[in-house]
């Protein structure tokens, strides 16, 4: 065991990211897919913060990006859930495999 540093945090964020990706790819429920997306966003946030901390500690760009991403994530989640609920209302299902009316 060694002192935790940038590599450790990057490992966590990578793991979280691909966990989210896997969830996004394998879940059929739209809400759980949304959750996976939140995981992905969080892993990105973690990256930003870690880089800000370890590589450019004198600046705040990573921090601000994180802030904005959180804000946008909130908006995104709200819109996504609105869409999901609307979809549920119209087709009584939020299975992603059924939501394919707009193909071709």
């Amino acid at each position, binding site marked *: 065991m060694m002192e935790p540093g940038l590599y450790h945090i990057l490992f966590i964020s990578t793991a979280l990211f691909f966990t989210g*990706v896997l969830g996004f*790819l*394998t879940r059929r429920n739209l809400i759980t897919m949304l959750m996976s997306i939140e995981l992905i966003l969080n892993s990105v946030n973690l990256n930003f913060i870690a880089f800000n901390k370890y590589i450019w500690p004198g600046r705040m760009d990573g921090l601000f990006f994180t802030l904005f991403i959180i804000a946008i994530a909130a908006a995104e989640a709200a819109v996504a859930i609105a869409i999901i609920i609307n979809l549920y209302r119209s087709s009584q299902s939020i299975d*992603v495999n059924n*939501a*394919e*009316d*707009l*193909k*071709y």
Partner: protein
Amino acid sequence: MPNATNIALIPLLPLAGFILLGLFGRKYIKNGAGLIGTALLLGSALLALYTAYDYFFVYGKVDGVYQQFVPLKITWLAFSKELSIDMGLVIDPISVMMLLVVTFVSLMVHIYSLGYMKGEERFPTYYAFLGLFTFSMLGLVLASNIFQMYIFWELVGVSSFLLIGFYYDKPSAVAASKKAFIVTRFADLGFLVGILILSYFSGSFDFQTLIARLTSPESNEVKNAVASTFLGASALTWGAALIFIGGAGKSAMFPLHIWLPDAMEGPTPVSALIHAATMVVAGVYLVARLFPVFSVTTPAVLEIIGWVGAVSAIIAAVIACTQTDIKRVLAYSTMSQIGYMMFALGVSSYGGEAGLGYTASMFHLFTHAMFKALLFLGAGAVIHYVHSNEMKDMGGLRKKLPITHFTFLVACLAIAGVPPFAGFFSKEEILLAAYNSNTAIYWIALITSGLTAFYMFRLYFTIFWNKAQGEHSAAANKHGEGGLVMMLPLVLLAVGAAGAGFIPFGEFVSTDGKALESHFHLSFSLAPVALGLAGILAALWMYAKANDKPARLAASLGGLYKAAYHKFYIDELYLFITKKVLFNLVGRPAAWFDRNIVDGLMNLTGNSTVLVSEGIKKFQSGKVQQYAIFFLGAVVLLAVLFIYVWR
């Protein structure tokens, strides 16, 4: 000097008639159409007569030689400085002679039709077509340019087509008109290619230039042409032979004659004009027009012409003996007589005494026009009276139709070569010419002349004698012989048929323009006249009274009779070639190939595009996660590629 305006007016007057009657005839002129057409043609005929007088007796002869004049030449279509299609008028002995024949016979037919076609629904159209035909025929005769001749040649063909198909609601008439057009068209293809070959080597379409360049063996043109050979014959021989094919098609020479008997579906006066007196001799005229080329440069082709003519003459004569439709008998007789004219040209050579065949051929053309037109018009009068073409519906008509009977007899005597009628003189010269140069052809001609007399009198006796009077249907007798307008042409033509032989033809028409003495040998004439009389007597014996001799004779001849009756199955052969070979083996596969292979390839291109896009469409499934997997996979793949492979 020839007067260009007068001569140009000869063909233009009938053309005016065609335009006038064609455009306004149906609505505004109607019954006056016949008179207008006839009047215009009368003007034309008078001008032709004047021109002939003027040419033969006033200015045509210079130093004892009839000259060729080209009073008018307009460039119609120029291909290059040298090569152009001109519209010109040529005045020389044969063209003037043809002018006379065409205008005279056409005038007779015009007058005759006033009675014969009276009451027809398309009376004005009929006269319009007659005008078109006369115009085209005169244009052909006067052509100074080989392409001009081809143009009018085609126009003549189409007017013949229109007139044969005049009764357009009769399927047989339509079929006959199509057949006539297509067969002659096929022959015209040969003519066209022949023109192209000759004009390529001579560098001109103009008759005068072309003949001048191709008849001097030392000229470069001839040397070039002889140098280039194809299948063992020189290009020039091919060209001349192809041109003759054109002539043979129009003149119904064996084996391109099959259209002529069917062409009898047209109104009878039309048959008289087109398919007896004028258009069918266009082939003879063409050979005569290019005679110097044929005789000087390509004697081999001339020999072919002679044999084709002789074979046609005898085959047609044999077939004519067996036919029962009177117009068909006359049609085969026409073919046979044109065969005479052809082989007369074929046995002739250029210049002086040796050119007797040429003179004889033209002479026969002239006399034949008279008596054959007369025969047809007479037959028309009979048909008009009986309302049938079949011999078995006729008989004993000599009292009912006295004038017709008399004129028909004159014509029969003329064609049978009985002196002193016209046919005797011209046929005599032909036989003499043949005797002098080709004995085999002479014998064929001699036998043919006997056959001619036989089948003509077979016709004559069956129509006018044979049965007792009144045996044919009473319904037919409503109108009498057909009035003055129908009888006048018969009489005038009978005068021609009886007297035309006394014209000293050699004085006017010969290969080189110099006068040719016609020699008359009593001893030579004996054989053909005797044969002719024998033919007549045989016909008298068999057909003067109704009996079973013809049937027994036919039975004893067996296969020969049957073959002749079926026209030696040539029609069937053609039908086989066109229907079975051309349609089924060429046309149908071509159409199938186009629909299925060529178009199939196009559709294949289209369909494969559709198939590919159907395949690609699968990717666009609407399944978000599938997209995401592809996306991720592609990102990873690209990342690997960019990082490790393409670094």
